[in-house]
């Protein structure tokens, strides 16, 4: 019995450790003072209102949003097509291809960012929203392939074959048989890809131009110099956006399954 109490106390301690930095950012963003402190001095929303007066943060919020939407949308299309091929067909080089598609999970994303920067420089391609989105696309596509692939392996290819035997074209089969069945995988893949892109910093650091600075990169830039409560408010905004994604993903497939433990 006493052993159980010790273990329980320990778990609470670890949970506090895990949640502390997030709670501290949320808490100190509510300060009424001129400097960042925890616990906050007074309670106010003044630093959230202050965000609206700083165009660079609004620009970054917009950049992060369209990059996340663009990258996750494209990843959904490219990833679903690849997942279909990998799940439903046997062809030479299938294992190698799967390995290639999973390689961004294996590579440090910092290295991928550097390689892309050197590649763009070498090819004479200037930094633009498109180059940034392409970087995020490479990073997020593996997750879509995994999640949609898991959905596809949840039912047998015979259903699709039956539809085709009844005269459906491959496109009709996909629209009316496959698509409804893999909807949770598609939703989870799109949501996860959007969150990964929205939070991403290592690739964006190298591929952002002065006009395409994402929100995490903007915050990182501030942290290197100084931090006033404005940054805590912007960071809290990022936490709240992630929280929406967490709730969505928990609803759609559950975080445990998302990270492969259930």
């Amino acid at each position, binding site marked *: 019995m006493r052993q159980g109490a010790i273990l329980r106390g320990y778990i609470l301690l670890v949970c506090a450790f895990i949640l502390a930095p997030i709670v501290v950012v949320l808490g100190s963003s509510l300060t009424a003072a001129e400097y960042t402190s925890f616990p906050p001095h007074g309670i106010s929303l003044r630093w959230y209102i202050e965000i609206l007066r700083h165009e660079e943060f609004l620009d970054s919020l917009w950049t992060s949003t369209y990059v996340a939407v663009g990258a996750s949308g494209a990843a959904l299309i490219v990833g679903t097509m690849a997942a279909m091929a990998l799940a439903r067909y046997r062809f030479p080089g299938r294992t190698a291809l799967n390995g290639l598609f999973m390689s961004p999970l294996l590579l440090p994303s910092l290295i991928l960012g550097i390689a892309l920067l050197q590649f763009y420089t070498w090819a004479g391609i200037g930094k633009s929203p498109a180059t940034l989105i392409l970087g995020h696309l490479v990073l997020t596509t593996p997750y879509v392939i995994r999640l949609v692939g898991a959905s596809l392996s949840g039912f047998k290819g015979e259903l699709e074959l039956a539809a085709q035997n009844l005269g459906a074209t491959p496109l009709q089969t996909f629209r009316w048989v496959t698509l409804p069945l893999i909807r949770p995988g598609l939703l989870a893949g799109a949501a996860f890809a959007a969150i990964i892109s929205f939070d991403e910093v290592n690739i964006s650091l190298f591929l952002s131009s002065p006009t395409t600075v994402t929100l995490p990169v903007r915050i990182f830039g501030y942290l290197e110099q100084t931090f006033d409560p404005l940054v805590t408010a912007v*960071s809290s905004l990022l936490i709240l956006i992630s929280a929406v994604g967490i709730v969505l993903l928990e609803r759609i497939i559950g*975080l445990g399954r998302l990270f492969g433990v259930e």
Partner: protein
Amino acid sequence: MSAASRRRVGLLPWLLLAPGLLLFLFFVIVPLAIMASTSTYQLDRTTGQLVPDGLSHYASFLRDPFYLGVLGRTLRLAAITTILAALVGYPVAYAMIKASPRQQASLLLIILAPLLVSVVVRTFGWLVLLGPNGAINSLLLGLDLIREPLRLLYSETAIVLGLLHVLLPFAILPIFASLRNIDPDLHRAAQNLGAGPAYAFWRVTLPLSLPGIAAGSMIVFALSSSAFVTPAVLGGARLKVMSTLVYQQIMQLADFPRGAAIALILMGISVSAVLAYLWALERGRSGIVFD
């Protein structure tokens, strides 16, 4: 099936794969090849041109005490983080196995949810916690335990703390998965044969969960050796690790060749750890032979 439709089936997977294949060819493989080739050049500072220079960057890296010091710090911090993550994470994974399904679900949520919050924000949280006006100093000052704020930031301890926080879930998950695969009857059988609970844990449960510990450790090592934001923010400008060194070479000194060479050395360390992780996972799966 007619010959024509069979041929169509043969082509369809490749049509489906084409966009992904082109994407990964042009935005993963080619860039890595360009980076590898760039690392064999030398930047001529007076002309700004790249001059072929063989493997000189790699050779000078291995001779330079400063670079070797950075490499040593990177490996040391990654190793400390890995050991701490396994030690701190094991009891958590163990408790999750013993918990009711409801408790297990909420624990899983607490452990996993922060993974979806940007690492910049989580690291910023540590800046607020450890800073001179931060929570820890306020608490200690308030309790009159110290007279002046402690200097907690910009130290190796701060880096390890931040890395441990970001990577702990990656240690817990594989241990949890391997513990769950152990038949509880084995533990009971050991106790029926006269082993105490501690002895049964030591001789039965712990050895069977080793593949999970190994897998978790490898992934934590890979991620902590290549982590950038945490050491950059919590270590400050002076305490360089491999990733911040690469960033400095490329973004501040614009020395692409040297940056590429250091990046490739870092990639070698991190990727070998990931491959070891995959190997440990594979062994873990085939290692469960008791069912």
